[in-house]
């Protein structure tokens, strides 16, 4: 793996990034970084069409979730709008045996793991706190405290090494997602230290979407984030986070690097949060419209669509069919979200401890008795 990146891409930030598809939809066959590492992809037309379907679908599902929130059906929603390429590319780079540690915005990665997209909606609707089996789905629970999951991922990756599951092409690798704001957290920096020292088989995938709620990148760092890796003793690479091909190629290489026993990599996916931080946020208070407009022309889906059209990999019929399928999935998701029952109140006492607790048991009984005492009255 390489430190440093090439200067390709007219729209690249100073220092460049790895880009395999320009905002105009032009393919760049391969990119060789300053350190001599070459990145490319070798997709069939079907695979290209599959990636496009992923991108459109996760955006459509996200839009449906935003609508559900606006209609009062979700308590909150953390939209991935604008970050589809970073998530789909890196998610599709994972192999089945790999383990992902998301924040609360990785709905696109979740989708690429072939997980039912409704899985995190209990959390956002307020009927549970997530409630899924991390190991079954190879996808850890959404972590809301910023950066904490990077340490969990690092520990998990240490366990992979201890289990002897690295050092071969079919070894296991771990990916930790986090954002630009998280890079200021002590825990994330501790994760970098640990991963470096223990040579953990993992990829730190930072979606730099330029804002931590309202605070711009300049409030988190004086140097490009990918360069932080050098100080911890492992490679850092910046990619065009709106380029699904670069996201796939670099993540796949970094994961293979890890699974082969060559240690961690930091990937900085340079992207933009097109929407609000969450549905509770008002980005017009801290960023100007022209900035948002300047990122619209770098949209991850429109560039990919332009590429497919130019290469005659996708035609209007295909694009319409993808839109329609995504819509069907979104409407199905909507129906199922609306049908999510509220949990029975007494279930709040479940799963406090694996071995239970006499205190919790006593309070559950008191709670049940208290409510039973109102039977036959108007009390609810």
């Amino acid at each position, binding site marked *: 793996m390489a430190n440093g990146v090439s200067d390709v891409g007219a729209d690249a930030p100073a220092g460049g990034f790895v880009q395999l598809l320009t905002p105009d939809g032009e393919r760049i066959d391969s990119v060789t970084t300053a350190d001599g590492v070459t990145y490319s992809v070798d997709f069939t037309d079907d695979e290209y069409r599959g990636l496009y379907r992923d991108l459109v679908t996760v955006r459509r599902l996200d839009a449906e979730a935003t609508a559900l929130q606006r209609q009062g059906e979700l308590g909150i929603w953390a939209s991935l709008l604008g970050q589809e390429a970073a998530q789909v590319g890196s998610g599709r780079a994972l192999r089945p045996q790999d383990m992902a*540690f998301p924040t609360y915005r990785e709905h696109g990665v979740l989708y690429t793991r072939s997980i039912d997209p409704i899985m995190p909606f209990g959390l956002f609707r307020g009927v*549970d*706190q*997530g*409630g*899924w*089996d*991390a*190991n*079954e789905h190879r996808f*850890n*629970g959404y*972590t809301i*405290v910023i950066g*904490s999951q*990077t*340490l*969990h*991922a*690092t*520990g*998990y*990756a*240490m*366990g*992979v090494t*201890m*289990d002897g599951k690295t050092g071969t092409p079919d070894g296991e690798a771990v990916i930790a997602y986090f954002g630009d704001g998280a890079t200021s957290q*002590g*825990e994330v920096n*501790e*994760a970098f*230290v*640990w991963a470096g*020292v223990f040579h953990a088989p993992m990829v730190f995938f930072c979606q730099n979407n330029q804002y931590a709620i309202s605070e711009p990148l300049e409030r988190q760092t004086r140097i490009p984030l990918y360069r932080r890796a050098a100080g911890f003793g492992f490679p850092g690479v910046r990619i065009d986070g709106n380029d699904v091909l670069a996201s796939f190629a670099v993540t796949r290489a970094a994961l293979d690097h890890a699974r082969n026993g060559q240690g961690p990599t930091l990937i900085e996916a340079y992207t933009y949060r097109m929407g609000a931080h969450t549905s509770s946020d008002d980005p017009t208070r801290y960023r100007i419209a022209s900035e948002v407009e300047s990122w619209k022309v770098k949209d991850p889906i429109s560039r990919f669509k332009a590429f497919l059209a130019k290469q005659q990999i996708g035609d209007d019929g295909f694009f319409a069919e993808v839109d329609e399928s995504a819509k069907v999935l979104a409407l199905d998701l909507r129906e199922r979200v609306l049908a999510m029952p509220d949990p029975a109140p007494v279930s709040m006492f*479940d*799963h*406090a*401890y*694996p*071995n239970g*607790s*006499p*205190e*919790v048991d006593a309070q559950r009984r008191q709670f049940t008795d208290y409510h039973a005492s109102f039977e036959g009255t108007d009390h609810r």
Partner: protein
Amino acid sequence: MSEIITLGKALNHGLRRTLEQNAKVIIMGEDVGKLGGVFRITDGLQKDFGDDRVIDTPLAEAGIIGTAVGLAIRGYRPVCEIQFDGFVYPAYNQIVAQVAKMFYRSKGHVRLPIVIRIPFGGGIGAVEHHSESPEAYFAHTPGLKVVTCSNPADAYSMIQQAVNSDDPIVFFEPKRRYWEKGEVDLAADLAGAYPLHASRIARAGTDATLLAYGPMVRTALDAAAAAAEDGRNLEVIDLRSLSPVDYDTIYASVRRTGRAIVVHEAPGNIGLGAELAARISEQCFYYLQAPVLRVTGYDIPYPAARVEEEYLPDLDRVLDAVDRSFGW
């Protein structure tokens, strides 16, 4: 094969046994390897079990606990050492926000069988941050269980029970009692051991109940021996488990004696003693001859070593409280 060993050595033997019995058990912390820990609790374990099972970690407590979470998700059973009580706070976020909640958050899918060992309490003449009693922070946190041992025999069995438990457990070790000796049956079958979360009557008595845990059990027993010379027969209960507390044993005792005095090193304000006093008042109201009294550290930062003996509850302060209870 009972042996007379120190509390610290009993912990060492207990940890060794868990490492022998379960390949998923790992020990991690600062200086736990070659050095054997600053108190030598893990002495010799890295040599015998390897540096991938007894892991010297980078010097960052959040990292110790945070990576332990990931290792536990992977199927390991990490036993984390926090070097001193006053150094646990950088890990507080991981402990209360992640370790305590992941089982609940995942609806029971993700278990974190993590033990967090913390030497706690004062009385060793140390500098700041080395003598604190932070147990209430953790006992207050749902999702954690909190225990502490007071003697070598309990140290040996309780550390094994804690490691074998699927609950996340904060295991407080009474550091000033590390060198106290007692008889330990190293061959004892854990199946016959006293339950981890049960309190125990350390001294049977009839006139008042002293409630203590960790380093204060010895103090309470000494006070009870002194009171016996004055003709007062005090019962001493070693709580052992601070969350959950085994209240039934406590209530039965107080209903017999009619008096309760809680002793702990931690500051009194919102401490374990406050909760115990409230519960006893609720459940033993008609049996009480006097209000529940507390003998605790003062509500100040832990003081300099040269005055710590005046800060820590001691035999005389316990007896003074006993006098006040009887004088009510």
